C-alpha cells in the first residue's frame, strides 16, 4: 500500500466511525454541536498522530510483554497535554467535552491503531495512518453533528469560546430536542450507518460489474 492509500484508508475504506464502528462512546455523546465535534475530532487526531509516531519509533525498543502498558503511558501523556492546553485556551469547549477528553486514553481507535499499525510499520506510514484515521473520525463526527445540531438546537456552528453565536435555522417551537439527547444520537448514527453501508455495497457491486464488462 502506498502512503497516500494509507492516508485515505482511514477516511473512507476503514472510516473509524462508519466502517470500523469504533470509538462509539465519544461519538454518541459529543456530536451534539459542530464545534464540539470539531474540538473532539482534532484532539483525537493530535493524540493519534503523536502516539502513532512515538510508538512506531519505539517499536523495536518496547518488549512485547509490556507493550500495552507502554502504549497506554504514551497515549495518556498526549491526552493529558491536550486536556491541559484545552482547559487553558478554550475553557468553554473543555467544559462541554468534559470527561470525554481524558477518556481518549481508552479510545479503541487509538490503542487499536497502535497495536494494529504503528507497532508494525515505519514512522512515515504510521504518521499517515494516524492522520487519516484521525481525520476520518473528525469527518464522521462532523457529519453526525451537522445533522443533530440544526434539528435539535435549531442552530448551526455555535462556538461560544470564539464569540460566534451561530446561525439560527429553526425557530424555538419547531426544534426536535430528541436529536441532541441520547436517543437522537442512536437514531442519527443508525440511519447514517445504514445509508453508508448501502452506498458502499452499491459501489462494490458497480466496480465488480465494470470489471466483468471489461473482460
Amino acid at each position: 500500500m502506498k502512503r497516500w492509500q494509507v492516508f485515505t484508508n482511514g477516511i473512507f475504506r476503514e472510516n473509524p466511525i462508519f466502517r470500523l464502528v469504533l470509538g462509539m462512546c465519544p461519538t454518541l455523546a459529543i456530536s451534539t454541536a459542530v464545534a464540539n465535534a470539531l474540538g473532539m475530532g482534532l484532539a483525537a487526531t493530535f493524540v493519534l498522530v503523536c502516539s502513532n509516531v512515538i510508538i512506531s519509533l519505539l517499536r523495536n525498543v518496547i518488549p512485547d510483554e509490556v507493550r500495552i502498558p507502554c502504549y497506554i503511558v504514551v497515549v495518556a501523556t498526549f491526552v493529558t497535554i491536550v486536556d491541559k492546553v484545552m482547559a487553558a485556551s478554550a475553557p468553554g469547549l473543555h467544559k462541554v467535552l468534559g470527561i470525554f477528553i481524558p477518556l481518549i486514553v481508552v479510545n479503541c481507535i487509538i490503542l487499536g491503531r497502535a497495536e494494529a499499525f504503528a507497532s508494525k510499520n515505519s514512522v512515515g506510514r504510521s504518521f499517515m495512518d494516524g492522520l487519516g484515521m484521525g481525520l476520518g473520525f473528525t469527518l464522521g463526527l462532523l457529519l453526525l453533528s451537522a445533522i443533530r445540531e440544526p434539528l435539535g438546537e435549531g442552530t448551526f456552528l455555535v462556538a461560544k469560546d470564539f464569540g460566534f453565536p451561530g446561525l439560527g435555522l429553526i425557530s424555538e417551537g419547531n426544534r426536535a430536542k430528541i436529536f441532541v439527547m441520547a436517543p437522537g444520537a442512536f437514531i442519527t448514527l443508525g440511519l447514517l450507518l445504514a445509508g453508508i453501508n448501502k452506498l458502499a455495497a452499491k459501489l462494490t457491486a458497480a466496480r465488480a460489474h465494470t470489471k466483468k464488462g471489461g473482460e
Partner: protein
Amino acid sequence: MAKIANEQLRLVLVLTLIAAISGGILAIVNHFTEPRIKELERQATNEALALCLPGAGDFQKEESLPAGAGGDVSEVYHGFDNNEPAGVVVKVEPRGYGGKVTMMVGIAAQGKVAGIKVLSHSETSGLGSKITEDGFLQQEAIREGGLGKPPALKQDGGKVEAITNATISSRAVIRGINQALAVAESFFTSTPGGPGDEAEAERGDGEE
C-alpha cells in the same frame, strides 16, 4: 538463569524509562498551563459572584460553613462594597431531576434575593434545562423572595410558577434558594446591630 533475569530487568527498565520521560514532559506542560487554568477558574467564579450580588465589589470566601446549614450548601462568600458588608453569596447544589444543580444565590444585606445563577446542571434538555432562563429565574415571585419571604412553587402553596413538565427541577432551584436564605439569615442575625435587625423587622410582618 542470568538470561531470564536480564530479560525481566529489560521489561522493567523500558517501562520505567517511558513513564519517567512522560512524567517529565507533563511536568513542563503543567508548569505553563496551570497558572492560566487557575486564573480562568478564579475569573469565572468572580463573574458569577458579581452577577449574584451586583452591589458588591470584592468577595471573601467564608472558611467554615455555619452550623445548621442545609446539606446542599457547599460554599459561602461574603460580599463587600467599600469594606461595608453588602451581603452573602451562597453556592448550593440541590438535587434536581438529572443530578446536582449547582447554583449561586446572592442575598443582599437587606435580606432580599439579589441574584441567582445556575452554574451547571444535568436536567433534561428543553424541559428542566429552562431553570437557567430568565423566564423562570426572573419572575416576580422569586425576585421578591428574601428572609421571611421564602419563595415556594404554586403547587406547594407559594407563588412561583414552575416550569411546565419540570416541577422537580423547579423545586430543586427553590430548595436551593431557601437553603441559601437560611445560611444568610444565620450570618445576618449573628452580627448585632447589623442588617440582621432589619431582616428581623421585616420578618415580623411577614407570613409568620
